[in-house]
């Protein structure tokens, strides 16, 4: 940008008696009191604005291409199973199916691997139309209790705070509605091992969930929400719970279920053994199972790439447009003629 530094106007500060304030007649503070600090006054010349847009365009387009490239190299299998897993007899009344505990919830689905997937392959479950960010839901937890045990149960957990007069550990709606579908994978006849360890944040395990806090009085009420917990494992090792309790900000979200540590090959058929326990039918939620690899940008997400490309090309377009306008209709930069009062005067 063009620079026009104002120098201190040579003020004749020598005369006059010394006043109590300002103390010194030079120095930064004095110039501050006279509103006369050296200042950088950028001017919005066509040259520099056009350059800015050119720079934006020239950087954004390649960044967009890189992002798209990264996203395209992620291999992803998305399989929605919540409808397919309902037996035909219950297709019209899915809620009856899910609420009836005598019906076996086991379900087997097949997917075909389209691209070669290099380990590690992440297994996510995706819920859609599930509001983990609902005001009532997101607040219903007690971080203190999770860390320090049942003595620290507080009222923030309502409505799942106590049961039969005893505190519930872990309390609150979030824990109560723990997701409890389970997945297993086989290819051909061999089982594909899913590593279910270290799927949660280390920091959560270490400092958010207590090592000596055990589930207590959990899912013992008249209304049972989601999954149960192993009462003999401390909360810090209940990784499914820890993952679940990191609430999602959007109604469509994925949570890590495990990691497959072997490659999946093109055209292989993977058989998914799903235990379809979790009730999303009452509110029309969708459940999907996702197998995906990862890039430096994370999972498959074309948004950033396209957004960068769009912004970059728009800015290149503006560069050309402004340049053309400037060439066709140049404005002298210091023309006080445009001042209406000057113009008025000169016209008459």
């Amino acid at each position: 940008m063009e620079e026009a530094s104002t120098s201190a106007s040579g003020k004749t500060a020598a005369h006059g008696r010394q006043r109590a304030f300002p103390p010194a007649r030079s120095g930064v503070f004095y110039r501050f009191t006279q509103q006369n600090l050296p200042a950088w006054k950028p001017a919005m010349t066509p040259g520099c604005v056009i350059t800015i847009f050119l720079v934006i365009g020239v950087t954004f387009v390649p960044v967009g291409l890189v992002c798209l490239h990264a996203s395209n190299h992620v291999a992803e299998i998305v399989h929605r199973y919540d409808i397919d897993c309902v037996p035909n007899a219950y297709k019209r009344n899915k809620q009856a199916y899910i609420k009836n505990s005598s019906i076996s919830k086991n379900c087997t689905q097949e997917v075909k691997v389209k691209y070669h997937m290099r380990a590690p392959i992440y297994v996510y479950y995706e819920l859609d139309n599930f509001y983990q960010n609902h005001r009532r839901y997101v607040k219903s937890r007690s971080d203190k209790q999770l860390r320090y045990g049942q003595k620290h149960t507080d009222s923030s957990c309502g409505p799942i705070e106590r049961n039969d007069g005893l505190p519930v550990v872990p309390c609150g709606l979030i824990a109560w509605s723990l997701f409890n579908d389970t997945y297993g994978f086989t290819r051909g006849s061999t089982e594909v091992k899913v590593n279910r360890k270290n799927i949660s944040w280390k920091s959560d395990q270490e400092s958010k969930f207590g090592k000596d806090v055990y589930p207590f009085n959990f899912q013992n009420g008249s209304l049972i929400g989601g999954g149960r917990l192993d009462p003999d494992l401390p909360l810090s090792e209940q990784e499914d719970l820890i993952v679940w309790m990191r609430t999602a900000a959007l109604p469509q979200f994925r949570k890590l279920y495990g990691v497959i540590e072997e490659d999946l090959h093109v055209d292989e058929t993977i058989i998914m053994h799903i235990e379809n326990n979790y009730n999303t039918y009452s509110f029309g939620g969708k459940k999907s199972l996702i197998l995906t690899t990862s890039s430096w940008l994370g999972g498959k997400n074309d948004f950033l790439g396209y957004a960068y490309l769009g912004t970059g090309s728009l800015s290149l377009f503006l560069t050309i447009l402004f340049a053309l306008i400037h060439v066709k209709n140049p404005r002298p930069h210091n023309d006080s003629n445009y001042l209406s009062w000057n113009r008025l005067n000169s016209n008459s």
Partner: protein
Amino acid sequence: MKRFVYINDEYQNDYCDNRISNTKYTLLNFLPKNLWEQFRRFMNQYFLLIACLQLWSLITPVNPASTWGPLIFIFAVSATKEAWDDYNRYISDKQVNEMEIWIVKNGARKHIQAQDIRVGNIVWIRENEEVPCDLVLIGTSEPQGICHVETAALDGEIDLKTRVIPSSCVGLDHEQLHKIKGVIECPNPDKDIRRFDANIRLFPPFIDNDICPLTINNTLLQSCYLRNTEWACGVAVYTGNETKLGMSRGVPEPKLTAMDAMIDKLTGAIFLFQIAVVVVLGSAGNIWKDTEARKQWYVKYDDDEPWYQILVIPLRFELLCSIMIPISIKVSLDFVKSLYAKFIEWDEEMYDHETDTPAHAANTAISEDLGQVEYILTDKTGTLTENKMIFRRCCIGGVFYGNESGDALRDVELLNAVANNSPHVIKFLTVMTLCNTVVPIKSPSGAILYKAQSQDEDALVNAASNLHMVLVSKNGSNAEIHFNRRVVQYDILDILEFTSDRKRMSIVVSDCQSGKIFLLSKGADEAIIPCAYSEQRIKTFVDAVDKYAQLGLRTLCLGWRELESDEYLEWSRSFKEANSALIDREWKVAEVCQKLEHSLEILGVSAIEDRLQAGVPETIEILRQSGINFWMLTGDKQSTAIQIALLCNLISSEPKGQLLHINGRTEDEVARSLERVLLTTRITTSEPKDLAFVVDGWALEIILSHYNEAFTELAVLSKTAICCRVTPSQKAQLVKLLKSCDYRTLAIGDGGNDVRMIQQADIGVGISGREGLQAARAADYSIGKFRFLKRLILVHGRYSYNRTAFLSQYSFYKSLLICFIQILFSFLSGIAGTSLFNSVSLMAYNVFYTSIPVLTAVLDKDLSEKTVMQNPEILLYCQAGRLLNPSTFAGWFGRSLYHAIVVFVITIHAYANEKSEMEELSMVALSGSILLQAFVVTLEMNSFTFVQLLAIWGNFVAFYVINFLISIIPSAGMYTIMFRLCRQPTYWVTLLLISGVGMGPILALKYFRYTYKPSAINILQKAERSGGPMYTLVNLESQLRSDVENTNISISTTPVKNKNSVYEPLLTESPIISTRRSLVSSSFDIFQPAQSRTTSSYPRNIKAN
């Protein structure tokens, strides 16, 4: 109604003691009283309501601390400031209260503290001591029974005033003063420091039982200093907070700037918008809850809920949206406003080296109004002129002196006449010397100094002494004059004081040698000439007055009469009677004076010059160019006023300008005259003529009471007015009239007669000049010289307006930005009122992240001071409120909506699926907002000092530092989040995208406007920054383009007056003329052909579009 003070008898009254208390609070009531005061503001009530609602955990979206924290902080800041001020007041009170004072108790002198003085005590004061309470003087060290006091603390006048003891107390010695008994009858405490209508009666054995009148001249008022007198003693009549000083203390009405009013209006609009959002989202939320959320078993809504559940969601949204109204705006504005005031006080260029006074801003809250002034009402004497009176000419007995040389004191004829003892001249000089209230003080070196209350009297006495008639001493009733080495003694019998109604003063003296009694009078021509004896030919004097007035000189007529002793004795009795009246004394005294002041022999006319202050014409020129209308209100006579107006560029003579007179003695005449003037004005508005009207006090009185409407129309149409012979209350009335038409008025004056106008105006500016500090004290700003006014308005006022405009709108922008994100998020969270941001972030966003960078806007300068001075028309942008109004505000509103959408949409898409973790996503959105606001501040500022750069980008760094710090606290919700984010490439890629998409269109739009639809400010910026010459004046004509589309600026130019339009009678020796000439001929030539205004566009009209 009355109070009876028994001298030396303190047990007989229950008046308050002399403890002075200026404090507002006590230790006990500080908290409740201060809170009560603070909660009288609507904004504070609103914030308190929000904070209270947040205590209900069911509805609060965030921790209540996020509102309580800032709220308590803001309250603590104001409370601390109040407490500090009050503590300082307490300390200074304490000092005064514990001052050691001598009083008489039980016949003996005793030392007590000032606070223990009771009404009726006799108080002794020594030289240079401060008077502790209001006293009635009963004894002094001077044998004549006088003493001198300095009343600067009371009325700001620095001359010494003479106080005399009442006649019945004259001659009492120490012993008697210790035992004196008596009663003083005085009115109840009031705040009039010019009146004290009381009387005193001493009990036997002291003299007699006569009632003796008391006036203000018999008092020593609190806070005065005793000077030139060894000691004085007096009876305490008013004590503590009931003294004249204590009573006149008052809290002035706080003034609200136009800008504050606009901000309040916008706040109101935002509040309504907020209510609308709450209602819409609240009902949507309730509907969604009943249709969708009940199916969501994991939310576990109860089927039967208490009735108030229907309010929960709307109230949650209310709390969520409460940040729309930025809690920090009040604190930020207070801060920058006090800085503006400091800048004014610090300004070297407004520092008057002559008198060593810096500019002072007594009211720190109204700097922005300076930039929006539309009318300036100015006093003449002492404001436009120097108030340095010099005796220039005189006309004695029909002979004009000083006409050739312009200085009568050097006129050989006059000197000869003095040497020849010409009787007329001697009489004239005697009146000049005696008819005044001047106090001569002999300095140790033998020279005589005159202490005068009136500059005119000072000039007359000094002139007389130059003509060998020297007032040597004045001791009470005795005056000694040396004339041509002869000593003449006079007894001063009575003083018929000057009042603004009487417009004359007289003095009765007797010649000690001959015993003859004379009445000497001086005063305004219309007050003296009608009193001439019937045979005298007054025509020469009337001519002289006219002639002198045309030269811009101040005239006084001098007259005298010899009195018969019978006549005098008879009159003297009635005068005494009137003087001791308790009711309507002033009026009664005037009545009695009237009886004596007749059949005068008019001796002559004196003419005193009051020079224009340096820089006055240029200042008026520039300010008028900037679209400010000038009214001159003066107590002087019409011809003098017009002359001064011509001299200082206020009006121009034919044919450039036209002066319309409104005059008349009767209602009908005035009405006709007004109608004629109004008609002419209506017709002439389209012509390039400089129209002004002149009205005098008499006609104004009739107009203001009967033809207010027509006059208002005239006031709106005409840019210049001269009102002469106006009283202080009429000045205030005129200000009120302009204010009622919604104009921003600035009143500037220097004397006590301007105080009411200064207090009435939106902005009062006082000149700390020779007439004392009264005006400066009452004013919002005080400056040393009139010429500083242009800097005060064009530089300080304009910058303040621009900066506040940016700062306030920006405050709303950043609050709305975060609020819109919350609203957008609510659509993805089941319209249940979940907050995306955590409490800490929300609080810190308003208090730290966004408020500190913008505070540095106080250093922003859109144009350099020089450019503004060269193009004063640019002030119109401030005057018409172009930078802060609903449409600019809509721009900021739109920008915050756009930015909220950009931040939100990009964040939720970039952080979708497996990344959609609440804490992370919220921090991404917050970082995006912070980044955008830093760019917005950068883009909107015009000049960057290192302070701004440091604040803007240092703040951005501080954001990360703070969040890193929070991220290492394990119990915080944000634990590890910031580290996690900073390691993700996605985070940085997202932020870059947000800033590109957020700022690109704004930069493009701004650039397009700046280059192809530039405002006048932009054009000047370009001219200034290109570094070239500001004006290419010479080839302006050739560069003229007709195709410029620039219709959005229609500035009414004030046609510049012709340089020939100014008479140059007596100011030839003043440097002003020559500088003004060169100014006009050089840089203003460009404006010369400007005389055709195409439209009659007044600022008023522009305001509308």
